[in-house]
């Protein structure tokens, strides 16, 4: 199996074991990421219990359209990433499908960052950055926006790392430096990408949906 020997890395002697270990390793890392973002969301929850009206007022100020469109963009990027990963496992004939789905995934990730940039611009113009010029009078609204800037910023960093990983994979596979069939790097990158999507799935109701009904 020339494909497998091209993909085999130190210290493994067996490709099957290498894949298992890689997959196990990324899941352990994702569990730690869950706790990292979970701690931030717990802080948000405690602050929201203390200041329910302020959080509703602050949530109303976010742009629901940017938030919803970006959620759809990220969900679609998970679709293309999943297709890329499954196609790489299915057949060596699907190399072109893997490549085009990886490219689409990276482009959807970039689209998310671009839309987020427009949203940040609007937030800054509306004085929604905590500090002396902050727009909302409610006590606790600044806590909401403290969380907003921190967690969307950290999420954007995670997504940027994902875009870099996917783009690198695309480049390496395009130049045929590594085979696409059964490449564990695709599998592991896909798992990371999906977690970044899941974090956003939870951020969407926390950031964009409070205070819409009142």
């Amino acid at each position, binding site marked *: 199996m020339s494909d497998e020997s091209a993909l085999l890395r130190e210290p493994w002697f067996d490709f099957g074991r290498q894949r298992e270990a890689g997959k196990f390793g990324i899941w*352990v890392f994702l569990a730690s990421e*869950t706790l990292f973002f*979970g701690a931030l969301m717990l802080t948000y929850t405690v602050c929201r219990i203390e200041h329910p009206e302020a959080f509703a007022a602050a949530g109303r100020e976010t742009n*629901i359209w940017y938030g919803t469109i970006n959620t759809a963009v990220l969900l679609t990027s*998970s679709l293309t990433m999943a297709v890329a990963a499954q*196609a790489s496992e299915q057949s060596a004939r*699907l190399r072109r499908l893997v490549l085009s789905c990886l490219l689409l995934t990276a482009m959807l990730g970039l689209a998310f960052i671009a839309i987020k940039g427009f949203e940040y611009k609007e937030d800054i113009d509306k004085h929604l950055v905590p500090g002396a010029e902050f727009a909302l009078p409610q006590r606790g609204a600044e806590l909401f926006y403290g969380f907003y800037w921190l967690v969307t910023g950290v999420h954007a960093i995670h997504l940027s790392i994902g875009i870099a990983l996917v783009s690198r994979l695309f480049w390496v596979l395009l130049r045929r430096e590594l085979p696409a069939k059964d490449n564990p790097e695709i599998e592991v990158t896909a798992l990371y990408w999906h977690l970044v999507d899941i974090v956003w799935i939870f951020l969407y*109701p926390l950031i964009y949906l409070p205070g*819409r*009904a009142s």
Partner: protein
Amino acid sequence: MSDREEAGGDARSSDGVRRLWARNLLIWAALLVLLLLSLVAAYIPMGRVTTASGIVVAAAKSTLVVLLFMELASAKPQIRIAAISGLVFLVAMFALTFVDVLARP
């Protein structure tokens, strides 16, 4: 590889591609429907139920992503243990915090 084998392989792989897209597009469509559902529910005044609906839908969406896109549903036991360990500690962190915050006078 003879022409006939080549053609057979192409037919198999195009059939496989169709199944691949059908499966994943279905999951994607379900995710988008859930997204719209949480958007609409957020505008219906139901008090705490409105807040809860957003979280419940987010949980449903991430369950779909974890089980089907990340293929945890068909993963080996050691992978499932690694995935669930994160969830267990997350629940512990939330539970211990709420025991304090929600019981304050």
